[in-house]
């Protein structure tokens, strides 16, 4: 799973969010390291929707503009959990090879 996909699913794992909310949340989760732009975000959302990992939620009009919320699906939750497991296993191996104590990696 690519990092933007991982971060988008992580952002949506907490609650349903609209496009701009996802962008700011991803920046927050990654400590400002990853900044999604609209083109990248909507291309990723399009793919994730097609794969059934994300679905449209509610819509609202704010300041005369459409705001659509997205939520993670059950399949998306499973996919994210599996990715977390993979990353955790890889991190554990890397940490043990570096001789780091658990919690310091």
């Amino acid at each position: 799973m690519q990092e933007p996909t991982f971060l988008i699913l992580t952002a949506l794992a907490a609650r349903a969010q609209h496009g701009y909310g996802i962008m700011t949340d991803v920046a927050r989760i990654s400590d400002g390291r990853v900044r999604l732009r609209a083109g990248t975000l909507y291309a990723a959302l399009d793919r994730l929707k097609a794969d059934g990992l994300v679905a449209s939620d509610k819509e609202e009009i704010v300041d005369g503009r459409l705001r659509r919320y997205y939520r993670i699906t059950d399949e998306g939750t499973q996919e994210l959990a599996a990715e977390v497991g993979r990353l955790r296993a890889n991190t554990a191996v890397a940490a043990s090879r570096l001789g780091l104590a658990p919690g310091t990696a």
Partner: protein
Amino acid sequence: MSDQATRRRAGQQRMERRYRRLLALYPKDHRREHAEEMVGVLLAAAAADDAQVRTPKPVAWALRFAEHTADSADLVAGALRIRGRMALNRIGRAGWFSRTARDQRWSDALAVVSVVAPLLLLVAALAEVHIPQAAASSVTGHPHWQLTAALGPADLPLAAGAPAVAALAFGRLRRTAGLAALAAAIGQVVSGVLRSAPAFTRYESPAVAFTVLLACTAAAALLLSPGPDRGLALLTRGGTALVGAGALILGGFSVGGTMWFGAASPPSFGFAGLGGEVAGLPGDLLIAAVLVTVAAACLRAPVSRRVLALLAIPVIPYAVLWQEKLAGDLFGSPSGGASTLIPTSVTMTYLLPLILAGLIVAGTWLARYRATGRARRVDPRTTSAGPPGTLRA
């Protein structure tokens, strides 16, 4: 409303217009569903960026410009990603790379060509880098031919592509081999276009046209037939001998002259085609005799007639090459000059093969159309339908 607010509003409207123009690059369905929210997100992000900037005016302007440029580039990249994904899905749904020719005889002919064409392409590539010449030289001790030392990037599509196509085709990776053959053909044309050489030594050259069209024929055969396994099962002993003869004359054409045909003197002129130097009327006549024999033998059965039609596509530029050499041998002047029997042209080297390919496609389509018509006449149930779209039990 203050002047500053009016200016900000006007700037926002300009930005929105620019983003909307870029959103036109997105597919219609995507635009219908997401355009409004994307504009909202873009403007919200731009407003947040503006609010964060606390620098002198010129620096702020430069930062804003950089951000808007990055957003615009990202929108274009996003449109390309979505369109690319849609195109790939369409190809996947249509099963373009899993289709084979429906007519059994054409399917079998393509299967035979999927064996022959990669082999001939390999021989052509080996000849290009003078490997048969070097082998002949090492056997006979003749000092004239050596492995070429001047293998440049322009030779790479054929030199690397042909062995890859043959390895993939016989390694049971038919579709990958077909795509590799297509890439080799495109690579040869592109490197020919980019090559800063005089006309008729680049992609217009019949030698290059031969390998380009051979690669295209190999690609079509590999993508549209059951593949080399079926082709090898169909190739009889006689057929195998014909393939060998074809490979031999191709190799012989490039090795040619003093080595194969025993001419007393070295070649009178440099024959650049396929990297070889060929001279001697006996050689020309032998090549013509082998080609005619192969063609005559292929005329006997329906499948081999179709094999002949398919292989004629790359053989047309090969024949152009042959008549250039024949003219050189008869009149003693360099190939490609005014003394060729038929003046070499792009029409001769590419248009005629393309017309032939078009005729083959049109002929198969017409045959299928007629067969469908006959089937309808025989089985009236297939035509006794009501208006289009009517469901029958």
